[in-house]
C-alpha cells in the first residue's frame, strides 16, 4: 500500500511517498522505503529527488538553522555536495545541484520566514514517528568558543592582545631607559691603598 505524508507551512510543502518495509515487520502506517519526495517552495519550481538528496538537504539546512539561532551564520555544504546554503544579504542562498549532467544548479534566495518554514517542514518529517527513514541528524551541540568568535568584531577581538603587547613593550622600553646602578665598593675597602706604596724619591738616605 502506497503511503503519502505531507508537511505544510505557509511557504513550504514537503511530501514524502513510499511504502512500509514489511521485510523488517514495519506497520501499515510506517513509511520505511522512500519512493519519491517533492518540496514546493512558494513561487519556485518544485524540487524532487532521491532519498540521498533529501538527506543532503536535511544535513545542510538544519545545522545552518542551528547556527542561526546562535547568531553565527556560516555556509554549509561543499562545492560538490548536492545542496549548499549560505547567508546572502538579508536572506539565505540555497543552492541545489542536479545529478543530471549539463544542468545548471538551482539558486534560490530565501528570506528568514521562508527558511523558518522550510526548517519546520524538515523537522516534522524527520521527527515523525511514521517515517522510519535514516534521516536522523546528530543531536544539536553547543558551539565552541572558536566558532563563536565571528560574533565578536575583529577590532574588539584584537583590542586586548594589542593593548597587552603595547603595555609590555612600553614597560620594557622604560626599564631600558633607567641607568644601571654604579658598582659600589665592598665595605671596608675605601681606606685601603689601591697601589703599593713607593719610597719618596727625595727621602732620607
Amino acid at each position, binding site marked *: 500500500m502506497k503511503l503519502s505524508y505531507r508537511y*505544510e507551512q505557509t511557504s513550504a510543502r514537503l511530501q514524502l511517498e513510499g511504502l512500509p518495509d514489511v521485510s523488517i515487520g514495519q506497520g501499515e502506517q510506517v513509511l520505511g522505503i522512500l519512493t519519491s519526495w517533492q518540496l514546493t517552495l512558494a513561487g519556485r519550481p518544485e524540487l524532487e529527488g532521491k532519498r540521498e538528496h533529501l538527506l543532503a538537504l536535511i544535513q545542510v539546512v538544519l545545522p545552518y*538553522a542551528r547556527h542561526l*539561532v546562535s547568531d553565527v551564520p556560516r555556509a554549509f555544504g561543499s562545492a560538490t555536495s548536492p545542496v549548499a546554503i549560505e547567508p546572502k544579504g538579508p536572506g539565505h542562498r540555497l543552492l541545489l545541484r542536479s545529478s543530471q549532467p549539463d544542468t545548471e544548479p538551482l539558486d534560490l534566495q530565501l*528570506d528568514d520566514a521562508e527558511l523558518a518554514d522550510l526548517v*519546520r517542514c524538515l523537522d*516534522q518529517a524527520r521527527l515523525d514517528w511514521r517515517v522510519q527513514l535514516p534521516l536522523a541528524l546528530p543531536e544539536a551541540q*553547543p558551539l565552541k568558543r572558536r566558532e*563563536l568568535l565571528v560574533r565578536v568584531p575583529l577590532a574588539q577581538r584584537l583590542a586586548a592582545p594589542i593593548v597587552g603587547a603595547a603595555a609590555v613593550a612600553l614597560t620594557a622600553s622604560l626599564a631600558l631607559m633607567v641607568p644601571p646602578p654604579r658598582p659600589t665598593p665592598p665595605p671596608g675597602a675605601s681606606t685601603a691603598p689601591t697601589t703599593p706604596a713607593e719610597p719618596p724619591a727625595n727621602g732620607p738616605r
Partner: protein
Amino acid sequence: MPEDTTSTLPAASRPTSGPASAHAMPLPRRGLERLDLLLLCVEALDLNGGEAMIWMSEQLGFATLFPNRVELWKRRCTNPLRRATRRGQLEPLESDALIRILCAMAERLYPLLRQLLSSNEPESVTAERWGLFQARLADLVAERLNLRRGGVQRLLHAEQGHQLARQLVRALSLSAGVGGFERLRASLLDAPA
C-alpha cells in the same frame, strides 16, 4: 492557511529524544540572559504573554516546578541583566522547563513571527509592526532590566536595537516546532565568547 500536520501546542513542545534533563548542564551566564530576553520578546509580541506563560506551564505539566507566577518570576530573575537579579544558576530541570515553555509560546506566536520576518509583506506594514514590537520591547526592557549594563543599552539603541531584536525574533521562529527545543537549548549552552 495550510494545515500543519503535526503541530498542536503540547505536541510541539513534547520531548523528541528521551529525557532532556538527563544529560543537561546548567545554563551559562549568557544563556540565562538570552533565555530571559527571548521570554521578554514573547511578552512584547503577546500583550497577555505573562499570563499565557503561566497557562502554558500548567499545560506542559510544570505546575510542580512553577506552582505560581512568583516562582516563575524568580527563575527568570537569574538573568544577570535584571534590575533585581538573583544570584545562582538555574537547575537543568528548571532551565529545560523554561525553554520548553518558550518553544511552546514561539509555536503559538509563529504566525506573528513569520509576519515580522517575511519580505513579502508590504514594507510600510512591516515597518509599522517592527515599530510596535520594538516599542513594547523597549518598555519591558526599561522596566525590568538594569539600564547601566552595556548589553541593555545596546538593546535600546536605535540601530543596534533593531538588529538585536531581529536576531531574537529569528531565533524564536527557529525555536518553534518539533525540533526547536533541541536547537534552542544547544544554542543557550554555547561556550562563552
